[in-house]
């Protein structure tokens, strides 16, 4: 129904501005309806302004800035309707280490109320997690679970699997 959509849209739009500022450490972002007279079909435009820069269309931002903006939108939506669990598959692919840090600090808050399962190749994301689950294929084409731990090799945190300890 139209009122229900508009109510949740406005709430998400409000959260989005705040979540963007938190993830970017400043700047601003807004959502706008492409066609305000046709709420039930209108597309939604995203305008974003990383700190110090100009307000531009999403398509002009960098790969990592776009990912962070999408994450801000996702979290803004979760605030309106939290889910007891979330599965995020390689959401950090385009992010540099610093942005992964900001992402994880926001994720920590959400993780107090919801379970998060994050598929990642990034060591920083792994370091920011409470639990590690490992998958591998010892025999080609046959998946099995492997237990990973965070160990310490030559003063450096590394991810070890069972047979490496």
């Amino acid at each position: 129904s139209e009122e229900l959509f508009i109510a949740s849209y406005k709430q998400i739009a409000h959260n989005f501005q705040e979540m963007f500022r938190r993830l970017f450490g400043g700047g601003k972002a807004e959502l706008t309806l492409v066609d305000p007279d046709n709420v039930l079909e209108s597309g939604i435009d995203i305008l974003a302004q990383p700190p110090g820069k100009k307000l531009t269309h999403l398509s002009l931002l960098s790969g990592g800035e776009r990912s962070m903006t999408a994450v801000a939108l996702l979290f803004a939506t979760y605030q309106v309707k939290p889910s007891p669990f979330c599965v995020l598959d390689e959401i950090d692919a385009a992010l540099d280490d610093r942005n992964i840090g900001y992402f994880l600090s926001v994720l920590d808050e959400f993780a107090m109320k919801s379970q998060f399962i994050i598929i990642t190749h990034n060591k920083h994301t792994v370091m920011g997690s409470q639990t590690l689950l490992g998958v591998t294929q010892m025999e080609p084409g046959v998946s099995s679970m492997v237990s990973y731990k965070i160990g310490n090799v030559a003063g450096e945190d590394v991810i070890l699997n069972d047979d490496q300890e």
Partner: protein
Amino acid sequence: MFLKSLELYGFKSFPDKVSLEFADGITSLLGPNGCGKSNIVDAIKWVLGEQSTKTLRAGKMEDVIFNGTDNRKPLQVAEVSLVISNEEHHLPLDDPEVEIKRRIFRTGESEYYLNKNRVLLKNIRELFFDTGVGKSAYSILEQGKIDQILSSKPEDRRFIFEEAA
């Protein structure tokens, strides 16, 4: 805690029965390319009632059954079981723990179980309706899906808002 454990048997790259245990907070799922991480995401969506073969990265539904390797014959059945904690009463049932299981045969037949009782697909899907969980658009973000939010077509992003409404 919401998700407690997942068991895969004959699903995609899991010809041998594999179990994994979930934990609270943030869990990182890692492993090399092609080892089965996104297949685990597909399994969670599938057991919750996902019917779109496209979003499961399959042609027809039977494609999720293990189709063999150089050393192994294809299997005839795929099954996935998910055990969920219901202590916070997210689900409209009295049981403190709920197990859902889905099975598909190469003949195309499917079976669905709720706490060992045979049920219909719609019973499984209705169970999650209010939690927002079952709607994979919302709490499960597949690999590359973040680009749909960023997509140059503003209409493509509506799914986020509609799910939260």
